[in-house]
C-alpha cells in the first residue's frame, strides 16, 4: 500500500524573526514494515542553508536555517511511502517470559542486548517512579510471555486513561498524568515507557503518523489528524515490538513510523531557535495521510 503524507506547520510571530535555526524529524525512516520512496520539505520563506542527515538513532533529520527577517514560517513536509504487507496477527502468547527477559537484560553479553540497555535508563523527559511500577506490576508475572504482558499494559492504559488534549501540555510530569489518568498519545507513550523501564524492560518512543481516513467500515483512529506517538519494547532474543496504547492496537499497516528515540525530546517533529519574534507566536499543525491507488506512481 502506498501513502502520501503531508505535514504542515505554520508559525506566526508577534514580531519579526531576524534569523532562525531549525531541526525537523518529519521524513519517515525505512523499517521492516515501510520504505520511504521520497520525502521533501518546502519552506516559506526559503532556507539559506539546509541539510539532511541520519541522527544517532538512525532517524532522518532535516536541518535548515532562515537568514532573512520573517513574521511567518511555513514548513511543509511531503513524503510518499510504501507499506509492506504484514504477516497476520503476531503470536504474543509464546516467546521470552518476563523472568527470562529480566535475566537476559542483566547477564547477557550479546551486543544487541548490551546496546538495548540504553533504553532502560532515565531520559530527558522520562524518570520512572515507584507509583508507575506499582501500576504496571500486575501485568508482568514472571512466567508470562513479555509481549503478552506488554499488550495487557497497553490495553490497560487504553482503558484506564482518558484521551484529553486540554489536560496536559509539553511539560506535564508523568506523576500528574498517572494521578488524573488523562493525557494525549505522547503522554501515554511516555507513561508506558516509564512503566517498562521501572520494571527493567527496555522501551523506546516511536513517533509517526496514522492514516487520516480509515478504510471503509473501520473507525477513525485517535491522533490521525496530527503526528502520532506510541512505543516499542525490547524482548531479548526477539527484538523490538511496537504497541499503541492510545488506540489499543499493535501498529501494523496504518502506523507509519517517522523516527524513534529515548523519548519525545529525541524526535521532536520540529524544534528551533529564533532571534527576535517577540514573546508569543501562533502555531498550527496539519497532517494528512492519504492512501494512493495501487496503480498510481509517484
Amino acid at each position, binding site marked *: 500500500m502506498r501513502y502520501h503524507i503531508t505535514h504542515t506547520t505554520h508559525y506566526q510571530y508577534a514580531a519579526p524573526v531576524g534569523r532562525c535555526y*531549525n531541526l525537523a524529524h518529519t521524513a519517515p525512516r525505512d523499517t521492516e514494515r515501510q520504505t520511504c520512496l521520497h520525502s521533501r520539505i518546502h519552506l516559506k520563506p526559503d532556507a539559506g542553508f539546509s*541539510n539532511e542527515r541520519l*541522527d*544517532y538513532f538512525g532517524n532522518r533529520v532535516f536541518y535548515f536555517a532562515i537568514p532573512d527577517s520573517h513574521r511567518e514560517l511555513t514548513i511543509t513536509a511531503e513524503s510518499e511511502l510504501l507499506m509492506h504487507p504484514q504477516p497476520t496477527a503476531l503470536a504474543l502468547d509464546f516467546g521470552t517470559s518476563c523472568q527470562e527477559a529480566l535475566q537476559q537484560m542483566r547477564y547477557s553479553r550479546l551486543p544487541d542486548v548490551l546496546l538495548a540497555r540504553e533504553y*532502560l535508563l532515565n531520559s530527558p523527559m522520562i524518570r520512572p517512579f515507584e507509583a508507575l511500577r506499582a501500576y504496571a506490576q500486575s501485568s508482568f508475572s514472571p512466567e508470562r510471555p513479555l509481549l503478552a504482558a506488554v499488550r495487557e499494559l497497553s490495553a490497560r492504559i487504553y482503558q484506564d486513561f482518558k484521551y484529553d488534549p486540554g489536560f496536559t501540555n509539553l511539560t506535564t510530569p508523568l506523576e500528574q498524568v498517572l494521578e488524573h489518568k488523562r493525557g*494525549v498519545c505522547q503522554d501515554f507513550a511516555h507513561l508506558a515507557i516509564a512503566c517498562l523501564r521501572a520494571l527493567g524492560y527496555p522501551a523506546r518512543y516511536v513517533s509517526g503518523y496514522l492514516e487520516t481516513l480509515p478504510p471503509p467500515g473501520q473507525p477513525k483512529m485517535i*491522533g490521525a489528524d496530527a503526528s*502520532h506517538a506510541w512505543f516499542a519494547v525490547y524482548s531479548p532474543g526477539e527484538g523490538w515490538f511496537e504497541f499503541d496504547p492510545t488506540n489499543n492496537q499493535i501498529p501494523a499497516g496504518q502506523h507509519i513510523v517517522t523516527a524513534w528515540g529515548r523519548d519525545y525530546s529525541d524526535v521532536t517533529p520540529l524544534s528551533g531557535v529564533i532571534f527576535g519574534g517577540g514573546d508569543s507566536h501562533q*502555531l498550527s499543525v496539519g497532517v494528512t495521510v492519504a492512501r494512493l491507488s495501487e496503480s498510481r506512481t509517484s
Partner: protein
Amino acid sequence: MKSTLHNEAFAPDGSLNPGWRHILGSLQQLGAAALLERDQKAKRILRDDGATYNVYSGNTSAGRVWELDLVPAVITSDDWSNIEAGLLERAELFNLILKDCYGPRELVRSGVLPPELLFAHRGFLRACQGISLPGEHQLIIHAVDMVRGPNGAFTVLTDRTQAPSGAGYALENRTVMSRVLPSLFRDSHVQRLAHFFQRLRIKLASLAPHQDEPRVVVLTPGAYNETFFEHAFLANYLGYPLVQSGDLMVNNGFVWMKSLEGLTRVDVILRRTDDWYCDPLELKGDSQLGIPGILEVARLGRVAIANPMGAGVLENPALLKYLPQISRQLLGREPRLASVRTYWCGEANDLDFVLAHLPELVIKAIYRGGEFRTQMGAELTRDQLTALARMINAEPARFVAQEMLQASSMPVLLSGEFAARPAVLRSFAVASDSGYAVMPGGLTRTGREAGARVITNQTGSLNKDTWVVARAAPTERAASAAADVRPLAAAHMGSLPSRVVENLFWFGRYAERAEAVLRLLRAVFVLLDGADVLTTNCRHTLLRAVSHVTTCYPGFCSDKAELLANPEDELLDVILDGARFGSLRSSLDAMLVCAEETKELMSSDTLRIINDIRDGITQLETSMHAGLAAAPEEALDPLVTTLLALSGLLHESMIRGVGWRFLQLGRRLERALQTTTLVNSLLGSALPDEDEAVLLQTMLLTLEVLITYRRRYRGRLEVVHGLELVLIDTSNPRSLLFQLEQLQKLVDELPPIGITSRELLGEQRAILDALTRLRLSRLVDLAAVDAQRQRNTLLTTLNEQRTLLQALGSLLSDKYFDHRAGPQQLVPASREGE
C-alpha cells in the same frame, strides 16, 4: 622542612635529591630579605598582568590574584621521560576511547564497558555522533591531574578533556619566574614550554577545512568565567582573536565572526566553553553561551572545534576502573601510568564495598558539572556519612569512590619560611601528526595545609612553575628565558569582534564621564567649604550642575529646600552609590566591566592602572564611609590622577588601530557632551556678577583651563572670554570645538562598510553639521542675556550640539555594533497527539 609525609625533595636518607639541591641551595643563599623582595616583585607582575582566577561568588568585580610560589616544582629529565611516555600513551588511549564512544561503540558491544557507564553519562552527547576532525586524532588536548606516591611514581587522579585549563597559567608562571629569578632559571637548564604551544598552533591550523590562512579563534564563555584570564592570555600568546558566543554566528552552513569589516569566516575554534552550552538548537536549549546551528557546521566538517564537542564524556571517573581492560583491548597492553583505584557504584560488588568503606574513600559524581561536590569520607560526620550513603543508594550509577591518596609533599615558601605541602601536577598533551606532544612539566598546585586533601583553584591553592631540569647542560640551550614566553604570533589587529570594539567605545565614554563627574565634584567641594560664603542662588546652581552632569535625577533639581540646605547625603550618594546610574561609582564600575571585555588588547601598564582604579574605588569607599570628611576633594584627587594617567597611556601606548579609534571616539564624544551640559547648567541662567564669577571659575576649574584663563585675561572674569576658551578655542584640548574636530578626523578614518559612494555618510553629516554650527556662532550672541535673565542662544546652540552628538553616537552604534538580542527557544513546539 621534615615531615612525616613523603617529601619529593629529599632522598630516604634525608639528603636533597638531585635537581632540587641546586635550586633550593640557591634560594636559601639569596636570604630572607631578597626572597621577600622577589616575592613582592612576582606578585606585582602577576597583578599587573591581570592574572586572576575568578572564584564563583556573588561579587563579580574582582578575581582572586593568582598566587605563585617562588620555589619551582622540580623534576629531573630522566624522571620526566618516564612520566612523559606514560602520558603519551594515556592520551592515545583516551583518543581511541573518544573515537569509539562516538563511533562503533565496540567497547560497549564487546562488554568491556558497562553500557550504563557510557549511556547514562551526561557528557555523552548523542548529537555529536558523526563529528570527525581531520587527522589521526579526535582528542586534541588531554590534561591529567596526578600525584606522586611514596615510591616516587605518579598516579593519575583525573583526566580533563572538556576544555582543559591551566596551560596558560603554566606559561604565566614561567613568565614570572624567568623575570623574578632570571639567573637561577638560566642556570637550571629548564626545558622550554614554547614547543608545546607551537605544536598546538600547528595542530589547530591543520584542523582547518581549507588550508590557506585558516582563521582560528579562542571561544570563551566570557569575562566572568573562572579562568578568563587564561583565555585572554592564551589568545594573545597564540595570536588568535578572543571571542564570545555573541561574536560568532552560523550562516550559510559556516561559522562567522562578526567584526567591523563584516562577517569573517572562522575555520577552527579553540573551545573554552563546555560543549553542553555551545548549541541551544541541539544541546542545552536555554544556553546563553551558545551559537545556534554550530553543531551542524561541525558535523559537516566546515568548522573544527577543539576539543571536539562531546569530549566531556571522557571525564567520567568511572572509566578509570575499566582502563586496564580498555587498554588491553585497544592497545594490547596494560597502561604504563597507574590511575587511582576507583570503584563504580553502578556495579553491585563495588557498591557494597563502597558503602562498607565510606570513611576511607573519596566520593565523586560521574559528571563534573552537577550539584554534587566531591566529598572526603574521612571528613564527614556520622550523619553526613549516612546521608551520603542514602544518596548513593538512590542512584548508585551516578557515583564513584576512589582510594584516598596522600600526595607527596614538596618545599614551598610561605611568608619567607620554607615549609612542605602536598602537590598535584596537571600535565598537558597536544595531538600532532604522528602522536602527542607533552608539555615538559605543567602546572603544579600545592595545598594550603600540610595535610590538605583537596587542592583546587576553587578552594584555594598555591601555584608553582614546574621545572623539568637536565642534570647536565641540555644539548639544545634555551636561548633566553624571554624567548620562551614571547608571543608566538602577532594578534589579528585588523579584525576585532564587534563586541570588543563596542566595549572600547564605551570604555572611553565611561572613563570620560567618571572624570567629568570627579572634576566637577572636586570644584564644588572646594567652593562649598570655602572661605567665601556663597549666595543661595549660586550654591543651588552649583548643586544642580552636579545633578545635571551625573544625570542622577531628580537630585538637586527637585528644588527641595531640605536637600539643597543639607546636600552632603546626596553628594555622597552620587559618588558612592553604584546602583544609581550616572554616579561616579556606576561609571567607574561600567568602565571596569568594559576593560574586562577588552583585556586582551590592554598593555600590562594599562592593566596596572586599571588595578589602581580598582584600589582607588576601595579607598574612596573607606575614606567616605563615615560621611564627608573635611576637605573631601582631597579624597577624589588620586582617582583624577589615575584617570589622567590612563588617558595618557592609552594615547601614548596603544596601536592606532580600529580599537583605538573607537576608544577615542567614545572619549571625545563624551567629553563634548559633558562640556555642553556643564556650560548650560552653570551659565544658562544669568546671575549677578559676583555669582557669575564663581560659576565661571567653577567651569574653568572643572575644564582645567583656569590658569590659562588667568594668564590670558588677567583675572577679569567675563562670560564671553570663558565661553571662547571652553567652546571655540582649538588651542585648548578640552574645548568643544577641539572635540568636534577630533571626532571628524576619527569618523573619516573609520573602515568603510558596504558600498562606498562619494556622498557623505550619516555620521560624517552629523559631525559636519555640529562643527559648522559651532563655528558660525558668535561669542556675543552666546553670552547675551535676554529679558528673562536667560542666555537663550547659548542654551539653544549647546542643545543643538547635544542632539547632533547623540545622533552621531547612535549612528556609530547602529552601524558598527551588534544589536541582536540573544536567541530564544522555539517552544512550545508542536505536541504530538493534538
